[in-house]
């Protein structure tokens, strides 16, 4: 189960819409072991493609260095599909390398008409665990604010 606050959820959706028809990608970092997605970090899709995404290698390094310094980990790794459903592709499964992360897939395929205009359909937002090639979908619970930290 992924519990995520409304502002972060909306931020991911807005990022996906903004980058459509290219795939958008990023992480939500949180304290190590907390399972709390607290800090949305939009990343540039270095592939700049409607069918592929990849964090730029230098950006990736800076991101992990920063998370390391803050004792954070990527609680959520998200990207968008812009023409297909919000389900991990074979490539997504093969390259998934954060067994502790929630892999969020959003789909913007129904959000735009043929001319690229907005048709107000909702963005599909789903979450998965991807471990050793096994995909398990999980429930997404959107809350106004994450509960207070338990420590």
């Amino acid at each position: 189960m992924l519990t995520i606050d409304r502002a972060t959820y909306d931020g991911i959706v807005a990022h996906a819409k903004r980058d459509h028809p290219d795939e958008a990608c990023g992480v939500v970092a949180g304290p190590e072991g907390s399972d709390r997605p607290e800090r949305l970090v939009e990343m540039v899709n270095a592939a700049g493609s409607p069918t592929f995404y990849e964090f730029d290698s230098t950006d990736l390094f800076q991101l992990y260095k920063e998370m390391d310094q803050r004792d954070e980990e990527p609680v959520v790794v998200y990207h968008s599909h812009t023409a297909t459903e919000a389900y991990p592709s074979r490539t997504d499964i093969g390259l998934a390398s954060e067994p502790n992360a929630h892999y969020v897939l959003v789909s913007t395929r129904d959000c735009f008409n043929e001319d690229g205009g907005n048709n107000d359909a909702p963005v599909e937002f789903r979450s998965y665990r991807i471990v050793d090639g096994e995909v398990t979908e999980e429930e997404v619970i959107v809350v106004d604010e994450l509960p207070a930290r338990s420590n």
Partner: protein
Amino acid sequence: MAIEVRIPTILRNYTGGEKAVSADGASLSALIDDLEVNHPGIKDRLIENGDLRRFVNVYVNDEDVRFIGGLEAELSDGDQVVVLPAVAGG
């Protein structure tokens, strides 16, 4: 000579859960061979057909090794090597 190698979560099963291990080598290639001695199996996760795997990034002192010679990148005592799998998909 000692070089600190930071290991990503996905490869820590080769290092007994350690986030960082120490290894030796005058080049990245030699360093990976040395890692393999103490952590058998790890080399195959980094190298494919004699080159770095496409979706594995290795950094020496903050620099992507692809820009500084790849497997031939030179290393010296005190360098820090970071391994990070690409975050990518389709």
